[in-house]
């Protein structure tokens, strides 16, 4: 089913050349947003000619985490919605596009989780990051799986168990974000530029091998690398590189 951007209630979606921009217009994560963002992922992979996706918020706020309106104290416990959210995060993490997150305002809980599954994160100087879930009595999703890979286990324990509000200087120092920029528009353009031609096959294979580097031993990882490399060097993009290297027109 084709995506109808006008029908979206929690997002704005726009394409400009090779860049798609997804704007979260709803500062809280609810099942509507999960559903719509999943639809956008379908569109991006199935129909969109873009190569890069910029994920950002509206009105100076990226995302402030879960909306408890979907959960009621008088209803039975339900894990299903959390599973949907994790499927969405894994989907974004493996998307056949380069993904960039623009972090503004207080980025909380699920907003941080979402940022961690993108390829590049740009942060406004006044923005903050906080995984506040444990203070509220629940868990910060699979950030428990991903966070330590960015910052090491010691920092991850502090960030998850004590829920500190992390400013942009510290976020940059910890490696949670790649850049702190007052002029976000210029920074986004520069980041898009920095991915160069964004060969989707090479990017997604390299990203998968990196993500799996904490998961497999060297022998398994070597087998995976050789399989992935064989695929990469069989693509038209690499053939073009070889033709250029040999001084012929691609």
């Amino acid at each position: 089913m084709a995506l109808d951007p006008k029908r979206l209630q929690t997002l704005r979606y726009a394409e400009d050349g090779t860049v798609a921009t997804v704007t979260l217009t709803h500062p809280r994560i609810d099942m509507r947003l999960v559903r719509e963002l999943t639809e956008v992922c379908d569109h991006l992979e199935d129909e969109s000619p873009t190569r890069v996706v910029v994920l950002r918020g509206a009105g100076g706020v990226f995302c402030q985490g879960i909306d408890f309106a979907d959960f009621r104290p008088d209803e039975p416990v339900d894990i299903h919605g959390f599973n949907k959210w994790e499927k969405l995060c894994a989907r974004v993490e493996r998307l056949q596009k380069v993904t960039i997150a623009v972090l503004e305002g207080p980025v909380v809980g699920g907003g941080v989780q979402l940022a961690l599954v993108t390829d590049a994160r740009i942060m406004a100087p006044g923005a903050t990051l906080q995984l506040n879930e444990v203070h509220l009595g629940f868990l910060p999703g699979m950030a428990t799986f991903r966070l330590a890979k960015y910052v090491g286990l010691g920092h991850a324990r502090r960030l998850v168990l004590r829920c500190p509000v992390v400013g942009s200087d510290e976020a940059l120092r910890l490696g949670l974000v790649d850049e702190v920029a007052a002029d976000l528009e210029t920074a986004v353009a520069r980041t898009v530029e920095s991915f160069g031609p964004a060969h989707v096959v090479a990017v997604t294979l390299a990203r998968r091998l990196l993500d799996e580097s904490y998961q497999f031993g060297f022998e398994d990882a070597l087998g995976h690398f050789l399989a992935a490399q064989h695929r990469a060097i069989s693509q038209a993009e690499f053939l073009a590189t070889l033709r250029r290297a040999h001084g012929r027109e691609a």
Partner: protein
Amino acid sequence: MESARILAVGTSHPPDRYTQQEILERFRVVNPAVREVFQASHIDGRYLVLPTADESGRPTETQGELLAKHRRWALRLGQQAIGRCLEGTGLGASDIDCLCCVTSTGFMLPGLTAMYIKHLGFRVDCHRADVVGMGCNAGLNALNPTVAWARANPGRNALLVCCEVNSALYVYDDTLNTGVVNSLFGDGCAAALVRADPLDEPRFAPRVLGFESHLIPDAWDAMIYVWDEAQGKFSFQLARDVPYVLGLHADIPVDALLRRHGLRVRDISHWLVHSGGKKVIDAIKYTVGITAHDVRHTTGVLRDMGNLGSGSFLFSYQRLLAERGVRRGDYGVMMTMGPGSTVETALLRW
């Protein structure tokens, strides 16, 4: 037209299991390259029917003895797998109306179907087809006409039997090529009951929705059976890069199959991929874009039994069912790879 369902599956293997180390010791393999291939195979053990060795540690079988071994064990393994498949279905061999048998590990004339009818209680008017010499992919090449027969004959029972006695392919000459082959293949047989019911009651068995094939003519001789004059035996030759070449093409039939049904890779819950070897499984993972978890049964069957040839994907299917995690409405893809070179696929829905 009714859909055909896979209603039951049964498997068998010879009684004796050998670790890679035990095989190296038994045949006193000293070539370090061959020893390394055995040890890096990601196979813990295999069920085999191994011959005794002479004083130098070499197996002593002639081609004639290998063919006799194939015939003897094909009967025994077939009997067990067919019995286990039909057990609990309320059916016996005499209820089977169409028998389709697959093997590539020993040439027989008459074929397996005639031998099974003679010895295992099938009716003499049972329709039959022998799919011979098509290699590891042949299970799906045979499932395709079996499903077509079942759909054309609603309510009647078709049985697919994939029986490979890879021990009957043993050539021992201390080269790396035979070393690779001897390190990889195991013996096993799988049987599957297929039927299309006229009043198809909802039952928890997958419908087979369609097939898609992809031949790679450029890799025609990448996996090939040749006569080894010096040894007086058939010898299976595997080209070095064929696992990656197969992997590289694997997404072509998968995409065609899924698109035809309006599906994407992300819609598939279960992958039943032939346990061809570690490299080809890796190549498929990174080309089709599926995870180590998706191919857990493929790598599990490889680890526990080696490459079982044409019935291998049915061993993975049996392990998937044993997990009891399949839900109604789930889609599954079966995929087999082999000589041709070819990638064969089938789409299932529970």
